[in-house]
């Protein structure tokens, strides 16, 4: 039996952190309140002081805090990113989640004792790419982009020089993380450089006759919704577009990734950690999702054959985008 998989949960606020710790996260990942991380939303994230308090709270419960510093700094911004790494180490974080290789290099040279995790934004999908980061920057773990099938994850776990973390639940980026410019094409702001995707300040809702609505990101019409039709946030990859006369979700529907049915295979493969997406979500989401995944992981470690309970599915359903979930790229037919 493989060692238990670590449950890594998101927190965008001290309240969400408290929820994650209370409901059974093994580790919580957070970001600083600046542009250094991929959820740089207004009002979200932790000040340096709040980060130190978060570390104390987690350590008192023998849990871990990871700091995500996973946007890419320009040369001119490098100082703020490096100072953020240094501050995080002083605050006592248990690991740094980094995408940029220069920042990994800085962390490895100046703080060798603090483990470095390769962010999903680092786009490493092969043993060779993992070797690149391991040999040069001594990463201890890599978070895999949401592009590999379960069989590919299994093979990669066998060949990886570092521990593997995969996404278990949450909003589904359907593009290779770190290599999607849809948002910057339309708004000038990207996950890579600005820590945002399809940012809210570019979203324009318009009421149409008969209770219909349309939504634009900047000037681009992302979708229209009929009376009574559930309207979703205009993330560009989840809009409805036309090809000829056909109107359809050309890239993906509003949906969330849910890998509960894959838990036994992920454990068997030797996956070290499971990541829940959602630092932008509130404490209620964090509590609900963390609770379900804690129960599932405990059940997996128990004596009985693992079964996904209907009440877990029901709870996750309520917090899922578009009220639907998918196995995403883990399942070959999705691809």
């Amino acid at each position, binding site marked *: 039996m493989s060692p238990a998989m670590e449950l890594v949960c998101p927190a965008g606020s001290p309240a969400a952190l408290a929820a994650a710790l209370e409901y059974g996260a093994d580790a919580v990942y957070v970001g600083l309140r600046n542009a250094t991380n991929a959820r740089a939303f207004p009002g979200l994230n932790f000040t340096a002081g709040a980060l130190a308090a978060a570390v104390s709270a987690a350590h008192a419960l023998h849990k871990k805090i990871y700091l995500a510093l996973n946007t890419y700094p320009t040369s001119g911004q490098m100082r703020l990113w490096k100072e953020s790494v240094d501050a995080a180490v002083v605050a006592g974080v248990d690991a740094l989640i980094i995408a940029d290789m*220069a920042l990994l290099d800085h962390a490895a040279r100046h703080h060798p004792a603090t483990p470095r995790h390769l962010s999903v934004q680092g786009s490493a*999908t092969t043993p*060779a*790419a993992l070797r690149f980061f391991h040999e040069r920057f001594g990463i201890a773990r890599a978070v895999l982009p949401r592009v590999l099938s379960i069989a590919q994850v299994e093979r990669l776990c066998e060949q990886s020089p570092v521990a593997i973390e995969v996404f278990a639940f949450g909003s589904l980026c359907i593009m*290779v993380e770190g290599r999607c*410019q849809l948002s*910057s094409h339309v708004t*000038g702001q990207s996950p*890579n450089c600005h820590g945002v995707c399809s940012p809210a300040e570019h979203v324009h809702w318009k009421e149409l006759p008969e209770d219909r609505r349309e939504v634009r990101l900047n000037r681009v019409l992302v979708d229209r919704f009929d009376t009574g039709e559930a309207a979703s946030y205009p993330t560009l990859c989840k809009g409805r577009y036309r090809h000829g006369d056909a109107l359809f979700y050309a890239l993906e529907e509003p949906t969330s990734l849910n890998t509960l049915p894959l838990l036994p295979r992920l454990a068997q493969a030797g996956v070290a950690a499971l990541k829940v997406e959602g630092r932008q979500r509130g404490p209620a989401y964090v509590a609900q999702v963390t609770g379900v995944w804690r129960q599932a992981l405990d059940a997996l470690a128990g004596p009985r054959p693992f079964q996904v309970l209907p009440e877990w599915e029901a709870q996750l359903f309520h917090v899922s985008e578009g009220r639907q979930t998918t196995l995403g790229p883990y399942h070959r037919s999705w*691809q």
Partner: protein
Amino acid sequence: MKLTLGPIQYFWKRADVLDFYREAAGWPVHAIYLGETVCSKRREMRLRDWLALGEDLAEAGHEVVLSSLALVEAESELSALTRLVENGRFSVEANDLSAVQLCSERGVAFVAGPSLNCYNHETLALLQSCGMTRFVLSVDQGEAALRDLQEGMTRAGGTFPEVEVLAWGPLPLAYSARCFTARARNLGKDECAFSCLDYPEGLPLETRERQPFLRLNGIQVQSSACCDLAPDLESLRRSPVDFLRISPQAHGTGAVVARFEEALKSGMPPLPQGECNGYWHGAAGMDWIDAAQLMAGESREGP
């Protein structure tokens, strides 16, 4: 500044690929990038075919670079990448970090392709230490980003690499595990029936109000709008840009090359023919910023 011809992004019939390069052999482009960068199932051209073609183009006086797959997932793809890196004849455009690592391990010089993330001079220097000789800006990096890189490198006392910029063509915006072209035809990726062959410039997507928006190209998503930096000739000349990349299209690429060549020779920026240049100006990629009116602080929005 010199011109280059980027790798063909689409899936064309073998005969069309060979016809294209038969013409391109006579074009005034310094370097020609060859190979499949989007999907490993596209096998009209095998590595030996690219190598043979490379010999012909090298014979015709062009620098030949073999471009690698942007998203490497399967072991078979990694093996193919290893064979590409070990070709023993031509340098490589590394389009993911697997390729960077394999080149570094084997001492093969490489061009850092546009799908690597290199946003600061320290990353540039790390890639140089792995064997990078030339750097292609990612689509979202423009004039200011390039200046930031150069200033950083100068302060650090490093040597700035050769720089190449995508100057013409639809913008490659994203890659996925999912094949969007197959999906648009209600086919699975494994049963794609090589649908990409039917869309030699990508499958066009419009918004619900019929505005052209994106092109689906297998697992890649491109902008519908064609990037055109020819009107920005002056700011390109002010920047440390060595190469302007033309991205091959099924029709009219020879005329595009001729237009750029004429602009370089005369020093006169031509009138716009493309639809976007926002990234070069630090704006949204889809925007059109009028270089001629920029001095007056005016711009018009793209389509």
